[in-house]
């Protein structure tokens, strides 16, 4: 009867059967990617919130809209978030106005459509990677469970050749198998938390963009 004395993490991983090792590798890669995306999203969402804050304060400070537009479009960087919506809407409005012979409602409709398109592009950027996080959060526990079930199946199959079954014969196999579940949970838990957090942040941002769109349409209507 051999008792596996060495239960170090590495021996547990190296001693696992090939499918279990493959599952562990997949889960490790998923976990790395999900954390990578989490950090990227934290940075981008934080930046989007800051920028919309700055833009709103600049917009409502009562300055000339033309000046604001020039400031945004002349910048080296492509405008993002609320600024890009404003740019698209104002550009369309000015273009329609230059043509001169258009109905007010058509002008408003055109600028509204342009703003809507910019808004959708912005929202798409904000939503990026969230589906990945959602699927990692829901699927990786199952992948880990699959590895665990496979490992436990193997360790029990080994038991059938032994006349006297003891816990020490099954325990190492089960410990190896459970490492897969642990990795799966480690990948899933932060992904789920991050997904929920980011989803609510994106929702709040999109509501903010939409209300800005409405208010800006009103302002444009008054101008025309």
């Amino acid at each position, binding site marked *: 009867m051999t*008792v*596996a*004395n*060495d*239960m*170090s*993490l590495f021996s547990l991983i190296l001693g696992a059967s090939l499918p279990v090792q493959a599952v562990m590798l997949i889960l*490790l890669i998923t*976990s*790395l*990617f999900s*954390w*990578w*995306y*989490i*950090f*990227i999203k*934290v*940075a*981008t969402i934080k930046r989007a919130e800051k920028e919309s804050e700055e833009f709103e304060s600049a917009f409502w400070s009562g300055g000339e809209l033309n000046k604001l537009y020039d400031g945004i479009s002349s910048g080296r960087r492509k405008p*993002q978030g609320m600024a890009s919506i404003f740019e698209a809407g104002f550009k369309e409005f000015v273009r329609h106005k230059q043509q001169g012979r258009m109905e007010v409602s058509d002008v408003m409709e055109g600028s509204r459509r342009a703003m809507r398109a910019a808004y959708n592009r912005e929202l798409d*950027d904000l939503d*990026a990677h969230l589906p990945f996080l959602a699927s990692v959060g829901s699927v990786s526990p199952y992948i880990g469970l699959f590895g665990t079930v496979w490992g436990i199946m193997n360790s029990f199959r080994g038991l059938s050749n032994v*006349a*006297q079954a003891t816990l020490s014969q099954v325990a190492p196999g089960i410990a190896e198998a459970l490492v897969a579940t642990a990795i799966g949970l*480690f990948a899933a838990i932060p992904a789920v938390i991050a997904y929920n957090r980011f989803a609510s942040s994106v929702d709040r941002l999109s509501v903010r963009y939409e209300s800005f769109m409405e208010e800006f349409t009103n302002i444009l209507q008054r101008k025309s």
Partner: protein
Amino acid sequence: MIRKHENSDSYKAGFYALAVHAALLVAMLVSFNWKAAHPVMNVTEVELWDKLPAPRVIETPKPEPVIKEEPKPEVKPEPKPIVKEEPKPEPKPEEPKVDIELEKKKKELELKKEKELEQKLIQKKKLEALQAETREEALKDKAAAEKAQKDALKKAQQEFLDEEKGNDDKASSATNASLVGEYTEKIKAKIRGNVNKTLCGDGNPEVTFAISVLPTGQLSSNPKLVKTSGNTACDEAAERAIIASEPLPLPSDPALFSQFRNINLKFRPND
């Protein structure tokens, strides 16, 4: 995979992701005691034998009591008669009630006592010298005896080991009969130790029981009486002894166990 506007963050985020995993790995390695402790490993298995394999081991312990007995009669008989006889005359002379005589006698007594004390001191010194000599002798004898005993034990062990090796070789060459016999003897010895022998009378009755054993040494069912000894009390005592001696000693080789699954135990409780 990565949007344009995310390029600036991607390296930083990748670094953070790796850092998180490294931190978790370190935390797991540090906080968990991954070495499984097996306190059971320190327990040594001891086999108790009814009959010692080598007769020499029994012979050698004998010199010890012989040596110990010798010094005692030498030392003790000498002082006791002298010391005990002399104090006895002391109280007797005190009985007369005349003062002068008493005083005289007291003086005489004191003189006597002094003399006795001197004698006692001399005797004590002699005794001590004698005792020291005898002790040294005893120590020497003891050391020699112990050495002899140890040598004998070593020899016995060596012989025993050789025998075991021989047994193993034989066992590997498919003659397990000796091992089976050995274990049946062990089972019988264990049961015999649990029999209430007073119930079996003075004779040497023989009982036969059919028992079925689990791999753990437990009985799978109650022992069945195959051949009675003629004395029901003795049979019952034997049955109780069989049940009491669970788990029965079994060979660790599972291949041999098949021969122990159902055995007919024929044994004499009074052996």
